[in-house]
């Protein structure tokens, strides 16, 4: 059995771990609220843009002359997997779930004889993907110097993706991120972003004829990159909220486990202490009787 001193040391170290996890849990709870508010603020723009895209897409027919972002390159040999992770750990299985989903997709695509490339956003997940696919990482986008990935980051990622797409580096892009369902539940999600899946046509509300300036095709071509940005931005926001949610749950569990461990160790500590006292007493009494 461990000595009293050792036990005391362990109890103290678990206690300080618990303090850290508790603090992280509270920080995550506060950040979660903020992240959720940000996600809500972004909703009007995204829904309006989707509506506009829907009504535009219903008016034109997709042909070879359509913008490449909508019509595709005509082949689907090279797939780019855009994997959005967080920069920090301490959030349970959040990052590994996303990476797992991406790797599963990669295997599936490779089994079909396609080429797979990775585009990584965020610091976590790099190591795992690099180990499995060391030569297939097209780019690693760094978000560690900004506090909360925002629209500027989404814009930069989208610009790079579009440039790569136009240079013919890939044919199809999938985005992996975690959808925020609740603080307890985050779903790793796979979404095709390039070619842009045609948004569902909005329900025609008024039959008034809408005028376009310039014409529908040109507006659509101008809006496509913006739509892509909005989708990336939405994904980054969902990811941020999911990360905090996952972090909160993971840290809550950790705090509770630490509490349990402290209770158990304290019982062992007290038992050992009592056993030592009893032994001492027995020794004294035995000594007194011998006299």
């Amino acid at each position: 059995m461990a000595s009293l001193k050792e036990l005391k040391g362990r109890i103290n170290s678990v206690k300080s771990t618990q303090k850290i996890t508790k603090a992280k849990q509270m920080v995550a709870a506060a950040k979660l609220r903020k992240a959720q508010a940000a996600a809500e603020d972004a909703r009007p723009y995204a829904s309006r843009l989707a509506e506009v895209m829907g009504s535009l897409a219903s008016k034109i027919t997709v042909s070879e002359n359509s913008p490449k972002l909508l019509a595709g390159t005509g082949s689907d040999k090279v797939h780019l997997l855009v994997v959005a992770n967080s920069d920090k750990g301490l959030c349970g299985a959040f990052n590994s779930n996303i990476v797992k989903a991406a790797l599963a997709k990669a295997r599936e695509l490779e089994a079909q004889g396609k080429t797979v490339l990775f585009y990584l956003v965020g610091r976590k997940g790099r190591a795992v993907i690099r180990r499995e696919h060391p030569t297939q990482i097209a780019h690693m986008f760094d978000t560690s110097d900004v506090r909360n990935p925002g629209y500027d980051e989404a814009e930069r990622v989208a610009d790079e993706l579009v440039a790569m797409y136009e240079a013919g580096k890939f044919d199809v892009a999938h985005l992996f991120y975690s959808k925020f369902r609740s603080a307890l539940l985050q779903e790793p999600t796979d979404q095709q972003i390039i070619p842009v899946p045609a948004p569902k046509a909005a329900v025609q509300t008024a039959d008034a004829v809408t005028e376009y300036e310039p014409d529908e095709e040109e507006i659509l071509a101008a809006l496509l990159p913006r739509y892509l940005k909005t989708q990336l931005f939405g994904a980054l926001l969902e990811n941020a909220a999911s990360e905090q949610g996952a972090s909160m749950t993971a840290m809550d569990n950790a705090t509770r486990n630490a509490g349990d461990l402290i209770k158990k160790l304290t019982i062992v500590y007290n038992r050992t202490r009592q056993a030592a006292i009893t032994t001492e007493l027995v020794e004294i009494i035995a000594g007194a009787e011998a006299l």
Partner: protein
Amino acid sequence: MPLHFELVTPAKLVRSEDVHMVVVPGTEGEFGVLAGHAPFMSTIADGALKVYRTENGAPEEIRITGGFAEVGDAGLTVLAEHVEG
């Protein structure tokens, strides 16, 4: 009759209010939108929106980049990537 004007960026809803008229710098020329304008969509050149709250008042200017305007039954909605000020 007032015109309902909304200015939305990816980060948030910047404005949602009733105004008299908004002059929008469309890519193919400026256009003013009053209440009851026909349904209309246009991309916007980077520049300033002029918002007239009252008929004779001085306009308020809002600089935007990467914009898109939609006029419908509900009024004027401007989607902009960036808004200054």
